[in-house]
């Protein structure tokens, strides 16, 4: 299909909207009516046609506007994209992975022509037509990681692997759930996850690291993570927290359906061949509660998950103060009926809301 790209904003007047197509394919993160941390990894080798899991790097209707928002963030704060010197080769690996994947998966939108190291890249949605020499930084306007991630939705953490650990040594981070690349760059897997409550004691990170260290070329993996965001604000950064934090206090029972968004991260993991580094794309999907509850199963389930979430997690995810209002709102869409297993909307089999 040809994607119609939205012209929309993720700040100020917040004109971001999901089409019916985007709502139907939203990556709802809860496979049952409750939530606790787990190492919920699976192979990233495609998925149902049309789903966000189908392609290696999902491109959707928000692509062009998200890339504009990224450019705005970087103009204000260039430290959101950093690459320690030894990670340049990994940057080229990432550029190749994304260009090859997108040109194969979306041939109508992206083209890559290669003759030896002379590469020709065409990105039609963004109007880019560029010839450059692979592995020669001087032929690109930015470093290879920055160049390609200015053209790819989602954040990218590029991890060096050494001493049986992963090190966050490069990244492009402008759509983050409140963590700072500038502060965390250079940290190992346990250090950058240190602020996450409970998961450490549960042994989650030891198991997750073991899994990630063994991801090999040709066998990428994925998982979903989530939080809540007031307004469709992509850039919920610690850097700007003193500016956006106050937006959390603007929720009212009247506006909560349109203002409160579920924020879902599709996290994928690919081994990079030349550098032996691991890239960790973190793709952010936003949906307003009002749109989400149009899927009866999701309305029922989200109410139950948010209501029963342990206090530490609601605090860490930053919505403890707003939880009562969110639960109140969602309770209208939970009639107590059982829900089907799995994350899919099951619109044809799940009953409509009983009123």
């Amino acid at each position, binding site marked *: 299909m040809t994607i119609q790209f939205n012209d929309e904003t993720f700040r100020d007047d917040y004109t971001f909207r999901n089409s019916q197509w985007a709502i139907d394919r939203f990556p709802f993160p809860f496979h049952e009516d409750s939530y606790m941390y787990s190492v919920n990894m699976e192979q990233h080798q495609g998925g149902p046609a049309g789903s966000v899991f189908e392609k290696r790097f999902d491109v959707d209707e928000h692509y062009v506007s998200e890339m504009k928002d990224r450019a705005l963030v970087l103009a204000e704060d260039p*430290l959101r994209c950093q690459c320690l010197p030894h990670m340049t080769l990994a940057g080229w690996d990432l550029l190749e992975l994304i260009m090859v994947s997108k040109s194969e998966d979306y041939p109508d939108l992206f083209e890559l022509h290669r003759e030896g190291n002379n590469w020709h890249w065409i990105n039609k949605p963004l109007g880019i037509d560029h010839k450059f020499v692979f592995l020669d930084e001087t032929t690109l306007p930015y470093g290879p990681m920055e160049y390609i991630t200015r053209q790819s939705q989602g954040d990218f953490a590029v991890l060096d692997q050494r*001493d049986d650990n992963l090190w966050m040594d490069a990244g492009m981070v402008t759509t983050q759930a409140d963590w*700072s690349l*500038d*502060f*965390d*760059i*250079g*940290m190992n897997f*346990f*250090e*950058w*996850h*240190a*602020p996450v409550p409970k998961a*450490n004691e549960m042994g989650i990170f030891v198991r997750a690291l073991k899994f990630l260290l063994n991801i090999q070329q040709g066998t990428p993996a994925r998982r979903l993570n989530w939080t809540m965001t007031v307004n469709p604000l992509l850039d919920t950064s*610690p*850097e*700007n*927290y*003193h*500016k*956006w*934090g*106050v937006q*959390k*206090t603007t929720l009212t029972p009247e506006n909560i359906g349109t203002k409160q968004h579920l924020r879902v991260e599709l996290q994928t993991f690919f081994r990079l061949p030349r550098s032996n580094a691991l890239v960790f794309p973190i793709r952010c999907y936003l949906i307003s509660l009002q749109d989400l509850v149009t899927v009866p199963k999701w309305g029922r389930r989200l109410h139950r998950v948010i209501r029963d979430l342990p206090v530490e997690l609601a605090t860490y995810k930053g919505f403890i*103060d707003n939880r009562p209002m969110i639960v109140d709102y969602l309770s209208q869409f939970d009639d107590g009926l059982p829900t089907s297993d799995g994350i899919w909307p099951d619109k044809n089999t799940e009953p409509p809301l009983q009123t």
Partner: protein
Amino acid sequence: MSKFEFPESINSRPVWGTLEPRPGKSHLMIADAEGAEALLELAKADDRLMSKSTILYFPKGTGETYLEDLENLGAAQLYVGPSYSAAVARLRRILQDAHMGLQIYLSGTESLMGQAMREAADAGIPHSAIQTEHRGSVARRMQCVHCKGITDDVMTDPFVCSHCGLNLFVRDHYSRRIAAYQGVCVDAENPGNVPEPVELYS
């Protein structure tokens, strides 16, 4: 009493150790204030160490207290300077000429150890191979996550960023690369509502 037992914390918070002699052809020791005590104990543990050692020492508020004892250690080189920042170029020059096998010992405040560790790591020594021992003040070197400015010797939580003036709370999240803890706006969701500052670890 120059020793302090830090409460257990998250994985990114540095855990300081106790200096012990290690094999190596040369040794570099960097200390401030009460950190001198850890070097004196280290010298006692192995009396052959000092003849292969360079010491950089910054007395800060302790004045002359430890100078005579340090001079009596017989280090190959003892430099006493007014501040760490004044000695950074000297430290970099020393590291430039150094070879693998060099042992590094840091003692004193978290600020001093953090900054010296960053230099040594940048020069190619794995941070986990650098020995540390905390002594003296528990004040913290803080980075404002908003303006990126560093405020040193922070003793209260919250505190005021010395660059942008925001009221920041003190996190245990620590960056080796910045050699500082993270300070985050305390009244972002409730502007003007700043809790009364309390002394750290009180």
